[in-house]
């Protein structure tokens, strides 16, 4: 295992790779492992989930998790110095938890309270932390060092993942994973169609996406090297 990882690391150095991806060889190994896991277990589960449940139910499930997330999105909005956003996030959580019946209905969006997307990785980025090298984590997938650190905090703050009742905790986490994977099913086909090399396509998309999120969807355009 270690020997394999070392060989991978050396392989990564040998290719004239991307500056953001110094351990490309190792990352490619983990990426292949994740792809295998996805093909064998997670993607089929997501497809079944999509086939069996009507859209209304899937929307309800996704809203339920989204509601819990809003609480932490609010915390991150505050940490990023966006108090107005934080107020919106808190109001969303309050309305959806009550009128939206434990978050199953997203009444707040209908009221015009916009949903945000924030996490600790973005907060670090907002504070000026550089993304650092690209990493592919087993199961969790693409991250950079900054987001991997953010992920640790996201996980320790996650209410579903910290329940004492183990079966409930595992069920909640598994359903969330499958529900999120199901919303990505259309993207699979697009990536297959688009990518010359899936690994680097996913990597570059991840890095661009995170950069965009740190700038709240309006990153300055990178210089066009022509």
């Amino acid at each position, binding site marked *: 295992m270690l020997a394999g990882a070392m060989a991978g690391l050396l392989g990564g150095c040998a290719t004239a790779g991307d500056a953001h991806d110094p351990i490309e060889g190792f990352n490619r190994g983990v990426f292949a492992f994740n792809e295998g896991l996805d093909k064998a277990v997670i993607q089929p589960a997501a497809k079944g989930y999509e086939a069996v449940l009507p859209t209304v139910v*899937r929307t309800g499930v996704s809203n339920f998790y989204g509601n819990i997330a809003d609480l932490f999105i609010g915390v991150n909005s505050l940490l990023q110095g966006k108090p107005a956003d934080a107020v919106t996030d808190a109001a969303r959580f309050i309305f959806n938890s009550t009128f939206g019946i434990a978050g199953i209905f997203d009444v707040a969006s209908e009221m015009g309270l916009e949903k945000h997307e924030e996490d600790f990785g973005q907060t670090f980025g907002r504070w000026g932390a550089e993304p650092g090298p690209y990493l592919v984590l087993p199961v969790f997938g693409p991250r950079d060092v900054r987001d991997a650190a953010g992920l640790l905090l996201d996980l320790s703050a996650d209410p579903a993942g910290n329940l004492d009742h183990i079966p409930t905790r595992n069920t909640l986490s598994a359903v969330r994973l499958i529900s999120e994977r199901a*919303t990505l099913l259309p993207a699979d086909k697009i990536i297959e*169609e688009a990518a*010359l*090399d899936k690994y*680097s396509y996913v990597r570059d*998309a991840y890095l661009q996406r995170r950069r965009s999120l740190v700038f709240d969807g309006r990153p300055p355009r*990178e210089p066009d*090297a*022509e």
Partner: protein
Amino acid sequence: MKRLFAMLAGLLFATVATAQEMAPDVLVRTVSNDVLEIVRKDKDIQAGSTRKAVELAEVKVLPHFDFAHMTRLAVGKDWRKATPEQQKILVDEFRTLLVRTYSKAFIEYRNHEIEFKPLKMQPADTDVLVRSVVKQPGGKPVQIDYNLDKTDRGWKVYDISVAGVSLVTNYRSSFAQEVSAGGIEGLIASLRAKNKGSEAAVAANKQ
């Protein structure tokens, strides 16, 4: 039949003519609404006919895209290493790849609602960003942005980004990798192989 053809040609000409004067946001909105309407009605496209979707894109969408500009952006600094003939081939192959990807995306997201954001633009602007949001039931809204610049043939799209990911510049590092491994010819060969593979998959799909 002849009359019908003449009428169609006339219609096409009319759309192209008005498109030249259309404001960039109106242009993008009109084209995407038209296309979505057709996609929602067309049984073949819904059944997954990429060929039909590509045909639709050829007529409706592609006249508004500047593929030479897109290819220059994706190839980046290696562009100057390519001879004019190679540049032409690169544009053609990249065009095929993008059209397929874009058509696929339209099919996958056809049932979603698209909301366009108001455009902030000065009359003198020649480069604008048209922003839209696709709302998917049960999922997070996805931001889709179009970069357009003003050419003498009207406003042309030179980049599309989905959820902050540019469909064009996302190729930059993999293209650079191909060029450093096999030169411009290597990149052309990879693009050709990719496009051929997709064609084969489409042919297999049709049966």
